[in-house]
């Protein structure tokens, strides 16, 4: 799925909407408060161990990218953060804890539904429901029993603007979402996720099925969204991680190899494996 060549071209096209922060700014932001605290997490699929003692914090209102070769456990970890792995039979957290705002999300007292309202998710394969664009966006609100027309209209406009899709679909809100292009569908899924006003958005390879132009749009969107949301993004595309994340975590074989500010990882990694992966020697 690595479209290294086209992405390399688009890298120049990306207009940085946010003014490039000065180095001191960056440093200050890296010291942002921790929102998710991943604490020595072991994770099992049945008998096989997929994650080995993962231990690092995720900072508030920054973009954290997980990179690594296929099967390294980055998607598994991401899906642990909103307990989507609960849907897969035979999975369990063997040891450690994941705390969001200080609460262990695997505690029996935690309501998964509330957790998922606060931790939204965008999937690798865009999955708009076969409903109208409008109904897709308000799906989460309707689940919460909100049916007031004015409230829903307002949310639709806010979310679609937030997902940079409003101008393109404002005239056909009530047509099927499946008539949208791939990139638009993915942005619709992002709009749907932000409609329920989460604090954290998890993105599982959101651009892997998109063409370069659509990828640029989603990346721009990530730049905008980090003003309001903490974003965790899994990606196969290292240029993408470089372009849109503040912090990058490199995983290999179910272990966290290195985590640092993105620029540092890409220019001066401390681990040999990281360097090899980034320079394309494997993976």
């Amino acid at each position, binding site marked *: 799925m690595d479209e290294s060549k086209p992405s390399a071209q688009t890298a120049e096209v990306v207009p940085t909407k946010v003014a490039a922060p000065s180095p001191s700014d960056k440093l200050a932001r890296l010291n942002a408060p921790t929102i998710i605290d991943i604490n020595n997490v072991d994770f099992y699929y049945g008998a096989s161990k997929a994650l080995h003692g993962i231990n690092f914090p995720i900072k508030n209102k920054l973009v954290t990218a997980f990179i690594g070769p296929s099967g390294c456990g980055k998607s598994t970890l991401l899906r642990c953060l*909103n307990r*989507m792995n609960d*849907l897969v*039979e035979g999975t369990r957290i063997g040891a450690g804890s994941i705390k969001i705002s200080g609460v262990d999300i695997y505690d029996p007292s935690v309501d998964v*539904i*509330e957790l*998922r*309202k606060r931790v*939204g*998710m965008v*999937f690798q*394969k865009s*999955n*708009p*429901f*076969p409903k109208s664009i409008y109904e897709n966006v308000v*799906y*989460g609100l309707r*689940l*919460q029993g909100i049916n007031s027309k004015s409230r829903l209209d307002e949310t639709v406009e806010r979310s679609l603007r937030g997902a940079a899709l409003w101008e393109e679909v404002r005239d056909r809100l009530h047509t*099927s979402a*499946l008539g949208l292009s791939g990139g638009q569908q993915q942005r619709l*899924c992002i709009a*749907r*996720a932000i409609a*329920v006003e989460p604090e954290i958005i998890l993105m599982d390879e959101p651009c892997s099925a998109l063409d370069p132009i659509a990828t640029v749009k989603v990346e721009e969107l990530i730049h905008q969204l980090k003003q309001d949301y903490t974003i965790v993004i899994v990606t196969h595309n290292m240029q993408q991680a470089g372009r849109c994340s503040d912090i990058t975590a490199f995983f290999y074989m179910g272990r966290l190899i290195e985590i640092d500010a993105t620029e540092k990882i890409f220019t001066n990694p401390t681990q040999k494996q990281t360097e090899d992966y980034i320079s394309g020697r494997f993976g």
Partner: protein
Amino acid sequence: MTTRAHPFRRQATVAALKETIVFWLLRAFTYVILGFGAIIFSIIIYKGSPAVFGSIRFDGAFPFIHNDFLFTKPQTLHIFRYKGELKQMSAAQYYAFTGEGTPETAPAAATPEQPLAPAVHATTEVVTPSPARATNAASALLAPATPTPPAETPAPSAAQPKIDPNDITEHETYSYAAGGIWPQIVGTVLLVIGSMTIALILGIFSAVYLSEYSKQGPLISAIRLAIVNLAGVPSIVFGLFGVGIFVIGMGWNISLLAGWFTLAFMVLPVIITASEESLRAVPRGFREGSLALGATKWQTIFSNVLPYALPGILTSSVLGIARVAGETAPILFTAAYATSDKLPWELSITPNRMHSGFLGYVEYPFLWIHDFALHGVSALPYHIYVVSSKIPQNEYTERVQYGTAFVFLAVVMAIALSSVLLRIRLRNRLKW
């Protein structure tokens, strides 16, 4: 010009010969099957359609087009000579013609049907003359040569001179042979609607449980295997099961309710299996996307999985409909009356006012539901069985046999077609 020898020349090999033989064999078998099917259908259509289309009658009374074969109750055929002229008449028409047995008080010239062949199960309802309903029967007409005025016109019996009984000679009667299958059509449709409703509700619920909620394990696999095996159980066994559980166990006697449940249990395996398939065919992304937005499992299934599985479930229910409508054995002991003089909604044995303890007489306006559900119905497949094996056979019974079979095919096709149309509508609305 001679064909040059080249390496790809077609040659008469044994393999090529086999290939040809196999091709023609397969083709022959297929066409033989098709041919038999076509013969059966065309015989039924050829012999059955005159009974239906031949009894279309246009006249002034509402609803202007009358069909005595379809829309009257089963009647005895009267064949006699009147002043030397051979006449064929249905019972109602005969009594209108002779004026015999017409109650002086009733303005419409009609009597209820005569008791039917004694060989038939003695389940005939007690006949209470209901003039309003009998008008339908009164207008029954088999021989177009002797027009009877429509019963709705005022006092036709008064206008009709009472004929001299001595003018009637060689009078013969044949049970059922005059046609009239309205109660059977109604019964079949009611059985199908009721049992499919029960089967779909139970089937979809258990399919949702099996495929979405239950933890996959040996127990669930065993249950699934048992369900699949149930589909192969002969229908007579379901009939006996219905007798044991519903007719005797629940004390429902021979009734629509018992028939609904018996037939529902018979088609449940098909519906559960197919519903599970359809649920599994709904993309995983729909479930995950919904759950990730904070939906509960039931919210996800109800609003984002079931609607998309519904077209598939309805497709399978078409098969179920054909089976429910067609099976005679399960309703033989549970729901079928050989004949009933009243339609299910005309039965009201239970009075609306009942004495209920210290409250005195209390009005129960919905007691007709009780009577409706706890009485048997006539059904088309059972009627075919009755007219072709339970009554004396003669040249006049063929008409009603084939006519019933023809109508039966048409009813099943109509029900299946409406289900297909519904499915297409749903699919167009819920395409992904």
